[in-house]
């Protein structure tokens, strides 16, 4: 959790509204528990009048600050809010001090230059102190293997996740497109014809005598799919020759075709619930035959 260290309310202190910098806030992390190589984020927030501009040249440059301190990252954000400029300067320091005991170090202060009506104004960002600790004991002990330092970093084995993912996805696409093509070329007729009457039964279950058109079309579609071409009443013998199992239900098939002819081509035909039941029974019978249970 970041700790707000310093808030200077310049306007409030002076009682004047003409000060160019009204607020300077320094947002810093905890001031203790750092080790060699740690990064320390540091945020400076400045609020100024609209006419005041922060001179980019005065912002600290990345690189070495001193022997043990590097400035790795500098980021400036600027926005206007309620008629005032809000500058947010984010700095990321990295400390390379190797203390022999817990030691207080200080990130040095720096000066920002602001420009108002051609006049330069200096604003000092105060120094910040923190504690750094040693990572190891003072004396250097060798292990039983004679090792006094951490071993080399070993290379990780190369990841095969990406090619495996590629193989799986490409194989899925290949299988689906190949399967679809095989179906289009008629290489998988059995698979597509196997459940025609089951689907017809499912559709019929939702229909009533008022939907007789759909009910008849549904059964016709099932027979046509099984026959691989439209099946008419006159062709049923040829159908039985190729599908002998269905011959056992020839009476129901004959009734279906006769009923369908009368329904579609005679005037005044009224469907009753019994007809729908007969159609359902026909489909159930055909379903038993197609799944081989009769």
């Amino acid at each position: 959790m970041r700790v707000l260290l310093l808030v200077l309310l310049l306007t409030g202190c002076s009682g004047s509204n003409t000060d160019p910098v009204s607020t300077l806030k320094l947002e810093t992390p905890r001031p203790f528990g750092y080790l060699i190589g740690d990064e320390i984020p540091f945020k400076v927030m400045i609020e100024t009048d609209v006419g005041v501009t922060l001179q980019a040249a005065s912002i600290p440059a990345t690189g070495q600050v001193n022997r043990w301190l590097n400035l790795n990252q500098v980021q400036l954000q600027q926005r206007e809010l309620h008629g005032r400029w809000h500058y947010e300067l984010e700095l990321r320091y990295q400390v390379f001090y190797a203390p022999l005991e817990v030691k207080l170090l200080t990130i040095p202060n720096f000066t920002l230059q602001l420009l108002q009506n051609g006049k330069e104004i200096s604003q000092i960002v105060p120094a910040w102190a923190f504690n750094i600790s040693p990572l190891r004991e003072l004396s250097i002990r060798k292990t039983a293997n004679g090792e006094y330092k951490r071993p080399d970093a070993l290379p990780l084995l190369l990841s095969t996740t990406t090619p495996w993912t590629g193989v799986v996805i490409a194989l899925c696409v290949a299988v689906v497109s190949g399967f679809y093509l095989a179906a289009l070329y008629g290489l998988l007729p059995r698979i597509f014809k196997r459940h025609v009457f089951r689907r017809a039964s499912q559709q019929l279950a939702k229909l009533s005598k008022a939907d007789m058109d759909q009910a008849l079309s549904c059964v016709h579609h099932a027979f046509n799919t099984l026959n691989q071409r439209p099946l008419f009443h006159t062709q049923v013998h040829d159908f039985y020759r190729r599908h002998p199992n269905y011959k056992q239900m020839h009476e129901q098939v004959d009734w279906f075709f006769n009923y369908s002819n009368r329904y579609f081509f005679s005037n005044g035909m009224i469907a009753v619930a019994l007809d729908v039941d007969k159609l359902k029974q026909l489909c159930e019978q055909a379903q038993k035959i197609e799944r081989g249970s009769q």
Partner: protein
Amino acid sequence: MILRTLRHISLWGALCLSLMVVAHQTISLLSLHTENQLISTLLAGKAVDVNAVYEGKPELRLARAYFLKQHKRYDEALTALGQIMEKGDKSFQAKVRYNLGNIYLEQAMLDVEAMRMNTAMPLVGLAKQAYRQALTLDSGFWDAKYNLEVAMRLLPEMDRLNLEEEDASNTQKSQLWTTVPGFPRGLP
């Protein structure tokens, strides 16, 4: 009719493309498998064909550098690492620099034990530089922190002035005291 033709063309296209991808990815998998075997062999301390290493991924060269260092072939290991300094992501680059630092530190320690201080000190300096670079790339690299501290103990850096009294605005690199070769042996 046009739609059917388009459907056929797209299906055949998808089939051919996916089969090509399968073939390509399978070749990649085989190549990765071979390289992983080479890495395992090198890490086990066994030699492999050099040509296979130089044609392979940077991880393979890192493994070869490790193998060379294990066999005390420091110059070859340094050359191998120097060739992959800018390869891979930040984490990999940090590893390369860390291993580089370990080679320098190990050489320095051998020189210190042989009382060759003049050659040991520059090597420790190089080791510290390599560890600092590794930590700049990955500040959470604990082994690099530890070894940098070891190198700092071997060759401490001390400012001429006490830090509390130091002028904080001075951004010039401070002049160092003379270096102290060898590790401190601890308090009595």
